[in-house]
């Protein structure tokens, strides 16, 4: 192939972040903070539920962060960040009004068009509720477009529960079956106790009409998948979101690769049926 063939008109500058400001900062738990982000140019992010952005702090680098708000929310978007690495710890120190950089949205999110009219079972474990919330709020904002909605959310202990105000709203929503559990209750806990799979056992769902959206830590997938199998869920009725080190977000750097696929391009949201043969996925 002569060099001329590589010169195309689709060259993209991929690495410059857009300037944004933290419109709101709120401590949710000991480790997690909530950030409402507004792009300086006033535009909407234009994302799909389940996509992610690269948050950039000059001097610290970039980190892939799930978008936590529904695209139905206009003017700004939400991130919820656990202080886990260099960038996220630095981000936790930022006050309201601070400047950050945003690249993205990246990756494939939940296929909302496809999910229309279907029953949806949400299964969120720990910090997995963060990306899941983008789809939950989307579905609740367009409630008539979807069938039966069930939300299962589990955390290690009550102090790690995120979005407490919203959980109340979901609980009180008559159109939603919302169930909450913690592994290790404290004295004040009055709700269900046990790992999240204990919520699935006595669930009444029609596996043929329902699509399950699961996001949680790697260990959770293993057991939730078994429980859903026991409920006769077919592989292609299960949708998951995977965490990997998505360094560049544009399918080049190689860090997020699972076997032959790049999570930042083909994911982070996957239909389980497409992942089954990828041994590195779970």
């Amino acid at each position: 192939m002569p060099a001329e063939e590589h010169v195309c008109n689709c060259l993209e500058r991929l690495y410059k972040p857009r300037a944004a400001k933290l419109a709101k900062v709120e401590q949710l738990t000991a480790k997690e903070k909530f950030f409402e982000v507004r792009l300086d140019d006033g535009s909407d992010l234009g994302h799909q539920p389940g996509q992610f952005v690269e948050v950039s702090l000059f001097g610290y680098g970039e980190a892939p962060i799930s978008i936590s708000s529904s695209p139905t929310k206009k003017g700004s978007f939400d991130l919820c960040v656990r202080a886990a690495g260099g960038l996220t710890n630095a981000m936790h120190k930022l006050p309201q009004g601070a400047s950050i950089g945003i690249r993205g949205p990246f990756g494939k999110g939940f296929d909302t068009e496809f999910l229309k009219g279907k029953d949806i079972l949400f299964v969120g474990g720990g910090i997995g509720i963060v990306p899941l919330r983008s789809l939950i709020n989307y579905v609740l904002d367009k409630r008539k477009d979807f069938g039966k909605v069930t939300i299962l959310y589990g955390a290690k202990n009550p102090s790690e529960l995120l979005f407490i105000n919203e959980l109340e709203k979901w609980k009180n929503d008559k159109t939603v079956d919302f169930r909450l559990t913690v592994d290790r209750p404290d004295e004040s806990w009055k709700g269900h106790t046990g790992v999240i799979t204990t919520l699935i056992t006595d669930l009444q769902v029609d596996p043929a009409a329902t699509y399950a959206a699961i996001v949680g830590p790697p260990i959770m997938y293993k057991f939730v998948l078994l429980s859903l199998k026991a409920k006769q869920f077919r592989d292609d009725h299960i949708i998951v979101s995977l965490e990997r080190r998505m360094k560049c977000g544009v399918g080049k750097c190689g860090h997020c690769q699972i076997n032959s696929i790049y999570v930042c391009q083909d994911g982070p949201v996957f239909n389980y049926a497409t992942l089954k043969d990828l041994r590195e996925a779970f």
Partner: protein
Amino acid sequence: MAERLLTTGEIARLCRVTTETVVSWIKSGKLKACSTPGGRYRVSTITCAKFLDEYGLPVPREWFMPDAADGQAAGAAPASPDQQTNEENIDMDQLVLAKAFVPNLVENLKKSYRVFGPVPQGASSAFKELDGSESMQLDYTTTILPPKKFVLPPREKLLDFNIATGESCEPKPDARPIAVLGIHPCDMQGILRLDFAFRRGRCEANYFERRKNMLFVGTSCNPDEYCFCDAVGSNKFDQGFDLFLSDIGQSYLVDVLTPRGREVLAGLKMQPVTDIDRREAKKAHDRCTSHPGRKMQPAVSSLPLLAKDGDELDLWANFGKRCLTCGTCNLVCPTCYCFDVRDNVELDLTNGARERFWDSCQLEEFAEVAGGESFRKERANRQKHRFNRKFRYFAAEYGAPFCVGCGRCSRQCVAKIDIVEIANELEKAVAKL
């Protein structure tokens, strides 16, 4: 217009397809061609114009211009008194350049390019910028680093930033035209694979702005016992190069593969090519083979399936145990392009740059996430990942393996892990399953 003969390469560029595609048109009878005594296809401009017209493709206007402008407009070398090539019937795509005139070629290149070539370094060679061609040694075995360092520098600035103002800008990539002499076929195949990787999905401006100003002059090579380009099908002498120099003793047979390649030959004393020269060139190409004692046993096309079937074999753990996770195999690989990104802040704590660096999937932290979860913790899995990336994952999409058989990973591995040995062991172990 005077009728002129076109090569498959020229037609390929006109139609923006590969040479192989043009050959397939000829073989299927869609495009009528004649053949030179040396077996090369030629198509007359008249035939080609009819063909282009038939398929609704644009016909170059210069073909219909008066004869005087014909030669120049079609991209032929400008006529000059001391050129010996303006007789009729001379094959303009193949010429002979005496080795003594290589310095003149370098001087020609220097008019428009920064020029790099293989220079001896320690027991090996390295591509270095040429001050004078006297230090260059075109007759070499391999370089420590492949020429990927030109298209994807080991360290590259992606962004300049100012922490105080929050402003950032993307520096223009260093796209000064460069010419690299002495590229071996395997290394050129490596660059073509990098082109694919940086075009795949989203086309990266940093990469291609640099890449489009590069001129590559290939040479036939002197393989050692680590080379196996023939086993992976990367001993190709006519892909990616602007010029290819085949060693025929006192001279090089020069294949002119692009108009840019033709331009840099302007004014050089060159001879027409004879059948003897072609036979010598063929011999030089035929030397590009594996060492008899070190052959890859399985066919490269069988490796994707072998890697899949052998996914759970102990073999990976055995190689993993030997691996010291230094990452050299990745750094010296012509097709490894994974990178990490880091911010470097200057001493004023205000200005800084975001830079990318070559990275290695053999390092444990490569697939680690901030929470501490590591998705390829075992060395065995990292060995397996590298092998799969070379022979299986992108192979189907690209249509050829991502290993080009240069042997660098094996040659430079301190633990003597040999990718050919892995392939051979894999075949044996899968057969026993």
